C-alpha cells in the first residue's frame, strides 16, 4: 500500500488492526477521539468489533472481559479518562491479562486543556493504580514508529500476559506524517489456554481473578509478577541514542519532544557543541543501563519534558549523582520551542565550562 498520510491517532488504530487487534472498547475524549472514530469505521470492515463504552471505567472493564476471552484488544483515552482506568489497569496487571491501553495525554491536572503534554509520565510508569505492579510503557516519537511500537505492544502484552501502555500526546495524535504499514511484524502465535472461553473440550473450568484472600498466596502472586517484571526489564528495554558517541552533554527526552530536541541539537552542533540525545522508547522498563553508561562519559545531562519534571527522577536514579542532571520543561500544554531547548543546551554548556 506504500506510504500514506494519516493522523497519528488513526495510525494507532490501523497499526492495531495490522497487529491483529479486532476489538476496541473506548470512550471519546480530545485529543484522541480520531482513534475512536477510526476504529468505529474500520473494525466492522475487518469483521472486528468497535463498541463505544458508557465511560472509561466501563471501557477498561470491557477490555478485561474481552482479554479474558483471549483476544487481542485495545482501549484508549486521554489524561482524565486515563485516571479513571487506574483500578482496571491494576486488575489487568494482577489477573495477568494482556491488553494495549493508549494514552494520548493532554494538559493537566484536572480538566486542564487539550494541548499536548507529558505530565502523565509518573502515572504510566510508577503505576497510577494501587498495588505493586508495572506496565510496559512505549512512547513513539513519530507516526512510523507508532506502527512498530503498536505491534510490539501487542506482542509484549501477549508474551508476558500484561497490560501495555502506549503513551503519546496530543501532538502525536493530531499530526500527519507519511507512514508505511508494510514493515516486518511480529507474527508469533500465542496459545492462550488460560482464557475463559467456555470449557468445551478443554478440561476443567478455568478462572481469571485478581483476588487471593490468603496473604501468603497473594505474596506468591506478587513474587511471580516481580519475576516477570525483572524479565521484561532484562529483555524489553528500548532506547535510541543520537550523536552520543562524542557527546559531552546529553539531552534525555522522549516522544514528540525528542523531535524538537533533535532539531535543537542540530542547531547546537552547528555551533560546534558536542551534544547528543538519549531517547527512551520504553519508559518502563527505563533504559537505566544506557544512561548509567553515558553518565560516565558526559559532563552533564539535561532532561527535557513537557511537564514539571517527572522522567528526570528516573534519569537521576540512573545517574546516581555522577554528573549534574538538570531539567527543562513546559507545562499546561505549551510545547517548548526549538530555540528554548537550544538555549538550555547552551547555558548548560556554559555552566559546565565554569
Amino acid at each position, binding site marked *: 500500500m506504500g506510504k500514506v498520510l494519516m493522523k497519528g491517532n488513526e495510525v494507532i488504530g490501523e497499526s492495531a488492526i495490522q497487529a491483529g487487534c479486532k476489538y476496541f472498547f473506548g470512550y471519546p475524549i480530545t485529543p484522541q477521539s480520531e482513534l475512536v472514530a477510526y476504529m468505529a469505521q474500520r473494525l466492522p470492515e475487518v469483521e472486528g468489533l468497535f463498541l463505544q463504552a458508557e465511560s472509561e471505567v466501563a471501557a477498561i472493564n470491557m477490555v478485561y472481559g474481552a482479554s479474558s476471552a483471549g483476544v487481542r484488544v485495545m482501549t484508549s483515552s486521554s489524561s482524565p479518562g486515563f485516571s479513571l482506568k487506574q483500578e482496571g489497569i491494576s486488575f489487568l496487571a494482577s489477573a495477568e491479562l494482556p491488553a494495549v491501553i493508549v494514552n494520548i495525554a493532554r494538559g493537566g491536572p484536572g480538566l486542564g486543556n487539550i494541548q499536548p503534554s507529558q505530565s502523565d509520565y509518573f502515572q504510566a510508569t510508577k503505576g497510577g493504580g494501587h498495588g505493586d505492579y508495572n506496565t510496559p510503557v512505549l512512547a513513539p516519537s513519530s507516526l512510523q514508529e507508532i506502527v512498530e511500537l503498536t505491534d510490539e505492544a501487542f506482542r509484549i502484552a501477549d508474551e508476558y500476559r500484561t497490560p501495555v501502555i502506549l503513551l503519546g500526546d496530543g501532538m502525536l495524535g493530531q499530526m500527519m*506524517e507519511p507512514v508505511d504499514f508494510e514493515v516486518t511484524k511480529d507474527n508469533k502465535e500465542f496459545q492462550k489456554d488460560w482464557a475463559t472461553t467456555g470449557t468445551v473440550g478443554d478440561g476443567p473450568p478455568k478462572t481469571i481473578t485478581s483476588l487471593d484472600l490468603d496473604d501468603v498466596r497473594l505474596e506468591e502472586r506478587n513474587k511471580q509478577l516481580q519475576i516477570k517484571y525483572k524479565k521484561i526489564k532484562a529483555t524489553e528495554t528500548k532506547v535510541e541514542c543520537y550523536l552520543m558517541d562524542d557527546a559531552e552533554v546529553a539531552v534525555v527526552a522522549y516522544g514528540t519532544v525528542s523531535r524538537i530536541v533533535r532539531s535543537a541539537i542540530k542547531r547546537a552542533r552547528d555551533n560546534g557543541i558536542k551534544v547528543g540525545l538519549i531517547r527512551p522508547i520504553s519508559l518502563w522498563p527505563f533504559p537505566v543501563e544506557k544512561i548509567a553508561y553515558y553518565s560516565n562519559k558526559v559532563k552533564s545531562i539535561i532532561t527535557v519534558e513537557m511537564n514539571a519534571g517527572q522522567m528526570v527522577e528516573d534519569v537521576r536514579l540512573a545517574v546516581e549523582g555522577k554528573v549534574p542532571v538538570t531539567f527543562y520543561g513546559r507545562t499546561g500544554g505549551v510545547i517548548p520551542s526549538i530555540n528554548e531547548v537550544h538555549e538550555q543546551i547552551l547555558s548548560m554548556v556554559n555552566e559546565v565550562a565554569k
Partner: protein
Amino acid sequence: MKEEIIIAGFGGQGVMSMGQFLTYAGLKEGKEVTWFPSYGPEQRGGTANVSVVISDQPVDSPVIDEPTAFLALNKPSFNKFYSHVKESGNIFINSDLITNYAKRNDVVIHEITATQIAQHIGNERIAGMVLLGAFIEKTGILSKESLYSALKDVLGESKKHLIPMNKKAILEGIHVMQD
C-alpha cells in the same frame, strides 16, 4: 531543500486543508513531510493554524518556531506569527483582509488580493488557494502538478466538483507571482 510553513486564518477559511494539500503534494514528490494542526479551542469560531514541513531530509520537529514561509489569511493570525518568520523568509498575505502593519525589511512580503481574486473565480472561500499557488511558485518547493493531484486526495469523491475551481485559484496565485 526544506520549507517550514505556517498557514493561519479563521476557522472556516480552509487552513487545515491548505496544509494537507501541501503535505500530500510533498508526499507525491517523495519528500519528507509533516503536518501539525492547532487543534485547540480556537478551532471553534476563533483562529486556526497549521504547521507544515516539507524537506528532503527526515523531519525532526513538526513544530516550527521560525517558519521559512507564512501564509496569513486574517489579521489576528497575521499578528500572531508575523514576527517569528525567519530572516529572508516569505510571507504571503491576503491583502484584502490584512492591512496596516509595520513592515519588516528582513523578510519578503507578498501582498496578494486573494479575496478579490477568489471572488472573481466565484467563491471567496478559496482565497487561501491563491496564496498556495503563490507560495509554490515563489519557493519552487513543489510543482503545480503535485498540488493539483493532491486536491483529489484531500477533497475525495464527495467534493470532487470543487477541484476545477481550486485549480483555477492556484493558477491565479502562480500568475500573481509571475507578474
